[in-house]
């Protein structure tokens, strides 16, 4: 039986998925609210920058595709939640600096 990917590996993989309009990866934008990895099943809880964003389905599919390609991953489930709502304050310092907010 393959071993589960580590959280660091999941995080690194998720940095390959980005918000197309902002042009920045979803991890540093603060869109990922939580990750759970157990027996090859990955659950990601995340949000979008705005309610009803037209890129929502593509970003979710991107997360699923990218994580499914990780060794040891059997299934990927993405839960999109709107509470708490996303705010620019959730961005990493790198992202804040990129947008001139820091």
């Amino acid at each position, binding site marked *: 039986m393959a071993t589960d990917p580590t*959280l*660091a590996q*999941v*995080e*690194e993989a*998720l*940095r*390959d*998925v*980005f918000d*197309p*309009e*902002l*042009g*920045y*990866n979803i*991890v*540093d934008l603060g869109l*990922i*609210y*939580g*990750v*759970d990895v157990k027996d090859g099943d990955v*659950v990601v*809880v995340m949000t*979008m*920058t*705005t*309610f*009803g*964003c*037209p*890129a*929502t*389905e*593509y*970003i*979710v*599919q*991107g*997360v*699923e*595709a*990218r994580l499914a*390609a990780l060794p040891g991953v059997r299934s990927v489930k993405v839960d*999109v939640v*709107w509470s708490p709502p996303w705010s*620019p304050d959730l961005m*990493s310092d*790198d*992202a*804040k600096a*990129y*947008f*001139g*907010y820091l």
Partner: protein
Amino acid sequence: MPGTRVSRYALPYFAVALTALMLAELGLASGLFPFADPLAPSALVVVHLTTVGWLTLLVLGALSQFLPVISARPLFDERLSLLALILIPTGLLGMLLGFAALAFGVSAPTLPLGGALVLFGVLLAAWNLYATRSRTHPSLSSRFVAVGLAFLLATVLLGVSLALLLTGFLPLPSALGALLLSRGLPAHVAGGLGGFFTLVAMGVAYKLLAMFTLAPEERGLLGSAAFLATASGLVVLWLSLLLGGLLPWLTILTPPALALAALGIALFLADMRRLYRQRRRRPLELNTAFATAAFVALGSAIALLLVSLFIGSTSWTLAAVYLSVYGWLTGLGLTQLYKIVPFLTWLERYGPRLGKGVLPRVQDLVQERRAKPAFLAYFAAVALGTLALGFEEAALFQLAALVMLLATASIGRELLAARRVRPEVASQGPARPSAQAGTLPQR
């Protein structure tokens, strides 16, 4: 999932709309808009190419994509969008032929027939959008859009009535017909320009600019006050203009209603200024930077309108209307198309490949430095055209219109360039800071 997909017909709407705009600008540059007679048949050709062909199709195309975003619901029926896209330009063509016939003293049935097709197309599009709206918590943006759509229906219905009257197909007693013409036309202009276009543009601006600049979407009291004052002012203004002939006491309400709508727009502009100051995305992109020129045009147009009505100057009133149509509405439309078209293109071309390899960002599909002179030229030409109209300098106005046409064509070329698939941009990839593993929260 409350996300929405790309509307299949938004981009075709934009393509037809931009073509109509360039034809209208060609008409202006060719002198088809005689200063002495703004209601001449040739002027009506230019006016309806701009309002029906460009602005109506632009707004309906944009709403077919962004009302689902505002409401977090998919579009009710894509087929209705297609049907409206066929009916409205076909009807417009009939109207233009009808106006051309009027120039030769002929009342062609294509004018009311075309108007009826436009009305039918607009009804379908409006129903499609109405059925898409949020039924739970209407946002500030969707409240602007809902009142705007009601004005769209009223404006088109009134327009068709005027077309029937002008061509002799609406048999009204002559006194009543004259009353409808004299009162209906100002109401048609105010309902279309203020009620439909401006309210919808304000609503869309609230959503899009907050999204693009990372500013708070919740606008609080100032946003609500802007909506209430503008919408209620325009509703009373429209009623007093239309029915003032039959109920003279209503005309007393015209000046305060206009003042209330102007106050609402002033509050909106103040809130937009606040929104830009609150933004977390400090460097402005081309679309958000030049949107400020559209806001300046809106504020200037309202000030010019109030002053020109006060001093009774027809030429400056015309200049104010022109500035609101080409500076505010068209300016906002062109600047936001510069963002929307690449964004929709990205979703269509690259969206399904996200997470499966290196992809470009939306920003990589455009070259802002190359497009900037076209936007500068466009807004400068609109300012020149406004002054030329006010001072009744026909040749200068035509020159300004020619520059507007060239600038619009250049912006159109940039949009086409964004649509082209360029494999080399895919290698750039998105901004990616050095990984700092261990920041992800575990559930």
